[in-house]
């Protein structure tokens, strides 16, 4: 019981750290729900041609987490 509580506490602490500090973490939800080798996904990702870092950007969502219809 004590060990289980300890492990759970460590998990919570680690999860919290990854959320706040790790720029490569998607808020602690990093697992993919689809096949990375799907041809459509591969086409959309384009070639990995050696870029050192990337900036993903957007704007104008105006209060909507999802677009209409």
């Amino acid at each position: 019981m004590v060990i289980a509580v300890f492990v759970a506490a460590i998990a919570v602490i680690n999860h919290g750290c990854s959320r706040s500090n790790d720029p490569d973490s998607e808020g602690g939800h990093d697992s993919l729900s689809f096949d990375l080798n799907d041809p459509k996904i591969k086409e959309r990702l384009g070639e990995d041609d050696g870029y050192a870092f990337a900036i993903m950007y957007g704007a104008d969502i105006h209060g909507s987490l999802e677009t209409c219809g």
Partner: protein
Amino acid sequence: MGGLARRVSYIKAFKQRSNTEVPTLSVDAGNLFTDDRFSANQLPAEVMTKNKWVVKGYGDFHHDAANVSYVDLPYLGELLKKDGFDKRVEEYPFIERLISANIHPMTDQHRELAPYVIREVNLKRGVPGKKLRVGIVGFSEPKPTGPNAAETVYAGFRIDDPFEAAKKVLPELKQKTDFIIALAYMDMGSAQRLASDNPEIDSLIGARQTSNMEEPQHFNRATITYSYNQTKYLGELRVYVRGDGTTENQINRYVALDSDIPDDPAAQEVVTAAHTEFTKEQTTNATAAAARNPNPLLGGDSPYVGVETCAGCHEKENDVWVKSRHGHAMATLEKKNQQFDNECVGCHVVGFQKGGFQSLYTTPQFANVQCEECHGPGRDHAANPGKGYGFMSTPVGCVKCHKEPNDPNFDFAVYWPKIKH
């Protein structure tokens, strides 16, 4: 197209494709929150709810910074209130990633925004092992009120000259960082001026006008790119670094967030919860309004009469309409629990905010894209049938909804046969 759940999926895939070797920053260039129906210094409760879920969604799914634009100020007034600020930040840490170098509260009841945030990324390519300090700074133009007029005071905030603010903040940020991203909510001409005047900027990411400018522009050291409206296409700027640590090149891509990109399940849960809470609040409001004044427009006050009246004489045309997507436009919103979202319903009903559709509870007879949405209000025509009513200029009339951000693939020659009548 678009949406948080697809955006999260794509970014995860992008990282995993390169075995997480590539640090990835996520930013928003402005207009994150809605100011829908802001009046008397207040936003309606359900609008506050929508915005609250944006703060949660962007915080839960890792965004490094969001630029504050004048559009965001009505809700920002709630977020930055000193009263309860620490508790809000504890619940929604993303609040501290909202930035602006030229927007300031007018009173001491609100906290100041940070002008910038600094993120440290560990390079594994270019100069493996180097810690690159990236500064992200935000600017907004004042609120436009006419072709050559703008308000510099809005919703309790002062919007200073972004060009003067840049001159103050960028030299300071340059001392602390290796790479500067400027987020700019302003038109292209102003963005070009900002980049031209300030050689400290490495990347300028703009918003406020829709762009399909795949090739970035270059001013001084800066690469200028522009966001697509509502992030239906995610901007992806790839930065290539030489062995000496300097930037070799920046390449821009727009990634279509269409149905080929699956929704991320965890992000979709947040989106669904947001829709559910918003719809619940709207249902409560609309039910109360309907109880106070059931069908307020049926007494003849509306210039619209609704499709049932049209069908009385135009039976053949009605048969075509019933089978068309126009005839089921509201159902597409209901499937996603968006039937009360004012940002959406205008293109799924007849006469929204023009004396026609108000809500499904008070004016269900005006749901769906009916005859009068294209042909104009028909009450006078119904009272005195005759020629002269119903002329429609196509495709000009169509593109008020079937336009670039909503329907980038609109082609009148393809669409018209589907509703020809």
